[in-house]
């Protein structure tokens, strides 16, 4: 270990010296080769190989040196092969090279001659191989030993007595080949593991690095084993695997165990793994506690999963060996025994196991549930999941069934699914909930029973309500809206043809979203309401079919619920929204011929209007909504209707701004004149006219106020609008609207406009084109002739 103090520069120097030494001796060796002088050849080749005896180089540089010697040894091998050049039978040569005093050159030469010896077939290859692998024991220095043995592996690779090779037969069986490789592997592994025990602990890190650089030398043996022709399952099961695992386990070395397990999994065929699953898994549980068993297991499961996916024919094999049960068992054991394994590790394992279960046993939901159950147990044992990576794994775990089955419905039958979700933190829980919703959206899956809805909402409760009272947490408003919009969309996805079930669904949804708090309700209630209304319409369309006392799904009951639901909104407070919903309900109720219900909704809406809606703009909007709805509803009796219209007009007149008043009031005129084909429809022309007149008055007042302050052209617009209403009702045949009324209004507008201009206000206002168009419309109607034309002819422009 003299290289402790040596820096990189020194190493470069030593390497250069080593290379120079090799080249120097190789030169003389070549001269001797040319002269066919065996004695000299042996002398200089031994000298050349002596350069490999250095202890000063790191593995990487040693490899450099080794490769140079390796090239030279190829030349030597060619010479050895040709007996006519050196004149010695190969068996004598085999002895002769063993006279070399130093072990390392001796062994390199012996391996080289050995390979020639096997090729000559003068001795059974198994004997030669056995001898070589045994004699190599003399080199116990880890790095030198590893390289020597890797040289042996290399020169012997094409000379193993495997099935189909020239060297197989008689006494040489594939077993001998396996035995040889296994032994070489065993020894290399021991050497490799030993590096860590060299030198003081301070250089540990560098040693780890060096060992990593060397690991492929060891792993190569496993590759060879994997490639040997004729290693059948029995042999693998009885000999190869147990021997390898014995090494792995007994090596008690973290790096080696991890790497070798990885190698085993990668190198040997899938079906072998499957058949030896028990052994392999048993080994996994015996690894050092620091070994990252989860990656090993994960790889194994991934491989098996892919194998299962590769062809349906192999699936029965999985069943035969009870692959799932075994894996599940092993993972349980690993998690139990490796207490210090971070939670993320356990989660990764579960994800792999789940993937495996999904791929191999897509029909066995109980397996999936079992995995999730185990996951719950594990999660319960830790206080609270805070590791972000672990969280990610859990999300992956939960997403896997969704992706596999493309159907949340399946996931909903997994009893442990929500319990796993409980262990997520709020943020992740939401992410997961979003994933679930997205999955539903994507697949357009319909959740059609109340039970499932119940479970589903339990799953996504992170979105439905604040968890654990940490509502103070700052949320990104945009994200929040996004989430709630998703929930809203989800609510719309819930559907069942059967009203009875649908009403149950609605009950469930309602129960859940009511817990959502003031911020969520405005998002969640509307879809619920509309969902309910849809049901109402459905009931209505098949009305008569349903009878019976205890029928839940009657429109009346639904409206009752809706009433209560919307009421919550008003206290949120989102009165405008509540008002809109009330009106929607009222209209729906009207369609169902439920007058008292509709009336009740209107009452609610009016109360809201009076008590909660204070903003003038909101009031304007509300009034127009109310008027619009009221106008369309035809269920009310005269008395109720009067009350409501009276109220509405009253509200209109009391709006804050004159123009708003004016517009509201002329809108109210429609309440008295509903233009439909219904004969007994409301056609109260007088009161409509009254409304218009009132609007006109208000417009006048507004005009005067505007004159006082100057500059506002609004009132003219109002006049034009009112004119349009006049024309509308006139055209519809309201007897109380006379052509003279229209004419005087036109004149009024003209005057107003002129006075406006006289006042020096030459600016063109937007009411001009509006007015002009209105006039043009009248002229146009005149020219039409017929009934309408006659009517319009009465209006003089």
């Amino acid at each position: 270990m003299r290289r402790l103090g040596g820096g990189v520069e020194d190493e470069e120097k030593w390497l250069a010296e080593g290379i120079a030494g090799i080249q120097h001796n190789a030169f003389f060796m070549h001269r001797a080769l040319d002269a066919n002088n065996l004695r000299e050849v042996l002398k200089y080749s031994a000298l050349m190989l002596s350069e490999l005896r250095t202890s000063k180089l790191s593995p990487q540089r040693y490899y450099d040196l080794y490769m140079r010697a390796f090239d030279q040894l190829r030349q030597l091998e060619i010479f050895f092969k040709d007996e006519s050049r050196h004149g010695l039978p190969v068996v004598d040569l085999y002895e002769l090279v063993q006279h070399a005093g130093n072990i390392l050159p001796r062994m390199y030469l012996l391996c080289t001659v050995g390979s020639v010896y096997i090729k000559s077939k003068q001795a059974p290859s198994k004997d030669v191989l056995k001898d070589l692998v045994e004699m190599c024991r003399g080199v116990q220095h880890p790095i030198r030993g590893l390289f020597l043995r890797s040289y042996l592996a290399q020169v012997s690779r094409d000379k193993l007595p495997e099935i189909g090779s020239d060297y197989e037969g008689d006494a040489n069986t594939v077993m001998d080949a396996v035995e040889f490789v296994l032994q070489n592997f065993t020894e290399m592994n021991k050497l490799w593991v030993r590096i860590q025990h060299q030198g003081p602990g301070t250089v540990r890190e560098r040693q780890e690095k060096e060992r990593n650089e060397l690991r492929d030398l060891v792993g190569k043996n496993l590759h060879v084993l994997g490639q040997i022709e004729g290693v059948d399952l029995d042999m693998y099961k009885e000999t190869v695997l147990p021997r390898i695992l014995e090494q792995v386990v007994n090596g008690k070395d973290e790096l080696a165990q991890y790497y070798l397990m990885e190698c085993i999994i990668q190198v040997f065929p899938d079906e072998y793994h499957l058949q030896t699953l028990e052994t392999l898994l048993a080994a996994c549980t015996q690894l050092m506690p620091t070994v990252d068993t989860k990656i090993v297991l994960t790889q194994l499961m991934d491989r098996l999963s892919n194998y299962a996916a590769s062809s349906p024919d192999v699936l029965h094999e999985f069943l035969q060996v009870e692959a799932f049960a075994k894996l599940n068992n092993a993972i349980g054991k690993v998690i139990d025994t490796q207490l210090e394994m971070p939670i993320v590790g356990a989660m990764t394992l579960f994800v792999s196991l789940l993937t495996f279960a999904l791929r191999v046993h897509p029909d066995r939901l109980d397996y999936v549930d079992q995995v999730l159950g185990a996951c719950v147990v594990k999660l319960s044992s830790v206080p609270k999941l805070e590791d972000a990576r672990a969280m990610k794994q859990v999300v992956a775990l939960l997403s896997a069934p969704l992706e596999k089955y493309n159907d949340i419905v399946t996931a909903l039958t997994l009893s442990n699914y929500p319990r796993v979700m409980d262990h997520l933190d709020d943020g992740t829980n939401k992410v997961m909930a979003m994933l679930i919703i997205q999955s539903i959206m994507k697949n357009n899956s319909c959740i059609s029973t109340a039970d499932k809805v119940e479970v589903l909402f339990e799953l996504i409760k992170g979105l439905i309500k604040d968890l654990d009272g940490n509502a103070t947490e700052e949320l990104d408003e945009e994200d929040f809206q996004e989430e709630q919009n998703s929930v809203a969309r989800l609510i719309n996805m819930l559907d069942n043809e059967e009203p009875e079930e649908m009403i149950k669904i609605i009950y469930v949804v309602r129960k859940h979203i009511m817990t959502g708090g003031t911020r969520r309700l405005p998002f969640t209630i509307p879809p619920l309401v509309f969902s309910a209304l849809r049901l109402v319409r459905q009931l209505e369309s098949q009305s008569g079919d349903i009878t019976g006392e205890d029928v839940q799904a009657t429109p009346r009951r639904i409206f009752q619920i809706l009433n209560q639901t919307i009421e919550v909104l008003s206290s949120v407070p989102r009165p405008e929204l509540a008002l809109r919903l009330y009106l929607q309900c009222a209209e729906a109720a009207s369609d169902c011929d439920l007058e008292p219900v509709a009336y009740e909704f209107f009452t609610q809406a009016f109360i809201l209007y009076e008590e909660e809606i204070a903003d003038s703009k909101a009031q304007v909007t509300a009034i127009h909504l109310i008027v619009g709805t009221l106008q369309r509803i035809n269920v009310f009796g005269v008395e109720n209707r009067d009350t409501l219209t009276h109220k509405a007009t009253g509200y209109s007149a009391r709006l804050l701004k004159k123009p708003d008043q004016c517009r509201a009031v002329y809108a109210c005129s429609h309440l008295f004149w509903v233009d439909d084909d219904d004969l007994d429809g409301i056609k109260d022309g007088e009161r409509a006219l009254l409304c218009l007149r009132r609007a006109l008055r208000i417009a006048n007042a507004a005009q005067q106020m505007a004159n006082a302050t100057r500059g506002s052209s609004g009132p003219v617009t109002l006049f034009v609008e009112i004119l349009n209403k006049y024309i509308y009702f006139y055209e519809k045949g309201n007897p109380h609207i006379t052509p003279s009324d229209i004419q005087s209004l036109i004149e009024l507008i003209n005057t107003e406009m002129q006075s406006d201009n006289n006042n020096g206000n030459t600016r063109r206002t937007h009411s001009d084109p509006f007015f002009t168009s209105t006039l043009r419309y009248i002229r146009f109607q005149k020219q039409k002739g017929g009934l309408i034309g006659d009517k319009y002819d009465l209006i003089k422009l």
Partner: protein
Amino acid sequence: MNYLLGAFKPACNVSITFTDGKNRKQVPIKKDNGQTVMNPLFQSQETIAGKVIIEPYQGKKVEHNGVKVELLGQIEMYFDRGNFYDFTSLVRELDVPGDIYERKTYPFEFPTVEMPYDTYNGVNVRLRYVLKVTVTRGYSGSIVEYQEFMVRNYAPPPPINNSIKMEVGIEDCLHIEFEYNKSKYHLKDVILGKIYFLLVRIKMKNMDLEIRRRESTGAGANTHVETETLAKFELMDGTPVRGESIPVRLFLAPYDLTPTHRNINNKFSVKYYLNLVLVDEEDRRYFKQQEITLYRLKADTSSV
């Protein structure tokens, strides 16, 4: 010039040849001056026969008081230089005193010679076999010629050859158990075994297996012990963990080994040990030594 030199030259050229010299195996041996020469190889109970050729130089005659050939087995201690100890001495008289005028060939034969010990060339001691031809002369000094030859004796595989197994350790620091498959190895053998680590609390750099030769010469107070490490073979690189077992496979052939010699003629012993050495990162060495017996197996015909 030639004439002058010729005056100091011996009067004749003596050479010794073995009967089957052409076919007999030759093995190299290192001389004192570092050169390697090839010598014929024999073993105990063999008949050593050949010819001694005496060839006087042109126109000279060799007067002598007799010609003899001796077969000597000698032990030479380096710290007691020049003092040979002959443990075997056989003589053949080849000629009675007389004159030699021309090239003369004397066949000789030592039938089934007892040569119990191997030729050995150690750090402090040498054991050698030699044929010595002496042309005895009166005043002008005898003419002596040597011809060395090698002797190697073979042993059958030992009937009892237990493994070596032992647990050793330093309390609370390092406990190992090692096992070598045999306690007696022939020279081209392979040592197989394993080192099993029961407890490891030190950081190790490497572990070697050494073959050591312990040569002790003399006796009593004059005993000289010399230990050489003939092989250093790395068994392990780096620190093992408890429960690890490291294989041992050491081929003896490449090393220059001799059989174990125990108390050769009361003069010297050569023993071999396996020394297991662990070196920690502070370069401290922990070791355990075990004697092994080496022998030469008959079947062994390699050229070393």
